[in-house]
């Protein structure tokens, strides 16, 4: 919805051809999935569990500062692994093909206050289907921020750098509220809706368990290290939240990423859908360790094209996808983490103020948003 459409040079046939080429990439990976991939995810899961166990063990002695540091660092990494490379990807069904009921999108539960099934609905269904469509994809600013010129400005948005910072610190709670569509559902009439109440209850239960574990049981088990363990788990959750928030912001918010109108997706073909995913996502460049710690969401573009391919394959897929971007003369938005984080934050700040150039606003789009 930027003033100039960066895909305008493509003909309808080219877009469909692009779609077929992407399908071919997908088919190739699917045909090649096997033992090595299965061994990979099992290894990651077992490493995560061991790291968490050891870190929690070390924290029993966290009154001793080096132990605190070590345990907190380990627990932070373990929590990041649980959420990113393991949880996010399993819940996408990336590993369902293994038919292992223990590593399956229908049975997995993660170390997060949003219950898996609610997250799957808002993330896998809404966000991934309607990526960057204003009014349909709530990930676009999470309903609390304005992240595109075409969204209407409201004085409330002046505070959005602050909201965004608070959201980063308590990201998992933000996600839980978001999965519940809290803003919309807190209206008097909707609050009573039994379906909403059941979901809210489930979130309450999950929060209780998580809080009890991190802030009561484990500190208590640490005895004399009660307070330091409490501080350690709080820190680990904070680190994990800020990290995942940063990675996720880099996926769709940096400059250069496109957003779309509701109208534009009516009767969308497979090729057009692919194209929207390509233009609506952004990558993070970096080392293997960096890709791992982001749960391979550093390959956000590839993830959006093929959300159900195993994450360990995105790196090889990226080479081919990038070649397609070049072939079709499209911009592959990518950059190192600090640059992308800065770019995303810059946008948050910039759009907290009304548009400098009011001509971008089009009245019918306004209406559409209101209707949404």
């Amino acid at each position, binding site marked *: 919805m930027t003033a100039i459409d960066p895909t305008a040079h493509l003909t309808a046939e080219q877009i469909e051809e692009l779609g077929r080429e992407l*399908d071919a990439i997908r*088919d190739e990976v*699917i045909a090649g*999935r*096997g*033992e*090595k*991939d*299965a*061994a990979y995810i099992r290894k990651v899961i*077992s490493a995560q*569990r*061991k790291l968490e*166990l050891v870190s929690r063990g070390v924290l029993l002695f966290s009154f001793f500062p080096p132990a605190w540091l070590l345990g907190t660092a380990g627990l932070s990494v373990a929590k990041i692994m649980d959420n990113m490379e393991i949880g996010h990807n399993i819940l*996408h*069904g990336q590993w*369902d*093909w*293994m*038919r*292992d*009921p*223990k590593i399956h*999108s*229908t049975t997995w*539960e*993660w*170390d997060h206050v949003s219950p898996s099934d609610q997250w*799957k*609905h808002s993330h*896998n*269904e809404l966000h*991934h*289907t309607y990526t960057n469509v204003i009014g349909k994809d709530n990930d676009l600013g999470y309903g609390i921020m304005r992240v595109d010129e075409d969204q209407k400005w409201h004085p409330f948005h002046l505070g959005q750098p602050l909201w965004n910072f608070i959201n980063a610190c308590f990201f998992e709670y933000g996600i839980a509220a978001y999965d519940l569509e809290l803003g919309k559902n807190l209206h008097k009439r909707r609050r009573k809706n039994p379906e909403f109440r059941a979901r809210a209850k489930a979130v309450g239960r*999950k929060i209780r*368990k*998580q809080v*009890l*574990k991190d802030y009561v*049981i*484990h500190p208590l*088990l640490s005895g004399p290290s009660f307070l330091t363990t409490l501080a350690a788990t709080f820190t680990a959750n904070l680190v994990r939240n800020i990290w995942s928030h940063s990675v996720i912001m880099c996926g769709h918010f940096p400059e250069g990423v496109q957003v779309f109108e509701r109208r534009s997706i009516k009767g969308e073909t497979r090729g057009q*859908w692919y194209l929207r995913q390509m233009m609506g996502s952004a990558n993070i460049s970096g080392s293997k360790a960096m890709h791992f710690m982001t749960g391979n969401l550093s390959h956000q573009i590839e993830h959006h094209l093929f*959300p*159900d391919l195993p994450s360990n394959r995105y790196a090889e897929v990226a080479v081919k996808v990038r070649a397609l971007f070049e072939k079709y003369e499209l911009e592959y938005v990518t950059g190192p983490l600090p640059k992308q984080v800065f770019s995303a934050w810059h946008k948050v700040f910039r759009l907290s103020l009304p548009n400098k150039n009011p001509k971008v606003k089009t009245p019918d789009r306004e209406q559409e948003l209101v209707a949404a």
Partner: protein
Amino acid sequence: MTSAALRSRAWKLLEMVTTPLLPSDYLDLVSPLRAGADLRGRIEAVHPETGDAATIVIRPGRGWRGHTAGQYVRIGVDVDGVRLWRAYSITSPTNRQDGRVMITVKAIPDGKVSNHLVRRAKPGTLIQLDQPAGDFVLPQAKPAKVLYLTAGSGITPVMGMLRDIEFDDVVMVHCAPRPQDVIFRNELHDLVADKKLRLTEVHTDTDGMLDIARLDELVPDWAERETWACGPAGLLDAAEKHWTEHGIQERLHTERFRPSIVVAGDGGEVTFSSTGKTVDADGATPLLDIGEEAGVLMPSGCRMGICFGCITPLKAGAVRDLRTGKITEAEPGVLIQTCVSAAAGPCDIER
């Protein structure tokens, strides 16, 4: 407080420590065969039997309840990263001192699991196990005379019986293409040498298929014997007919290995078994649409194969992935994405 109640309290506390995982998720890392774990086994050895058959020695987990001679066990093996379940007869006797169990597997052409087990399985591999099952077993009271009528890998459950209990008068008629294809041949011949078994081998490559009428000549007193028969459907059908014609069908016990063969076609009758609806489906319409049109409450999300919001158990039959053309056949635990799958022959969807 009783010790059981104490233990359950302690377990509850442990669950609070490990939430959202379970304590067992951590215990499995170190002790997958412990009591209380999901039943698993570890492959300890693989012994070749013939060119295309091998015996797998398995150490079962602590929860293994033991088997009765003639029973089978379902095992879940990861082949190319995909967990596949198959049933195999147990060939070890019930009183093995070391508690190990054995299955003997014959590689069938294109058989994913059987070829994997015979040719690629390595000692040390963990597999999933079910408790033994099946009623193709010997009775409590020993029959005076026994006939075992087997063909190919149909010998495996019978071998479990032969190794388990000695009878006074046992005859076996076994069919295999060539002498070297007879599984357990040396052991059978040892039994014959010890006068514990009378054996007739029918080599079908040279002798042709066994004509059931020849039993009169091979085992003149066959009708007086309690008979256990296992092998391909053709043989069992003929046996059942033969025994029925003589009015002694209660003396024949049969075991069929592959009860139903799925024929993947194009479209077919779809049963939604939870709702009890049945409709005809073509080979191109997603099962999600078929179900919705039939008024079945189908879960869904993106409707394009990316969100996994529509996955549903496939209980029987086969479906085709509309994107790749790949056929998926029903097996326990198989889930399909109904929005991108169409009927490939009759199938049963659990909705």
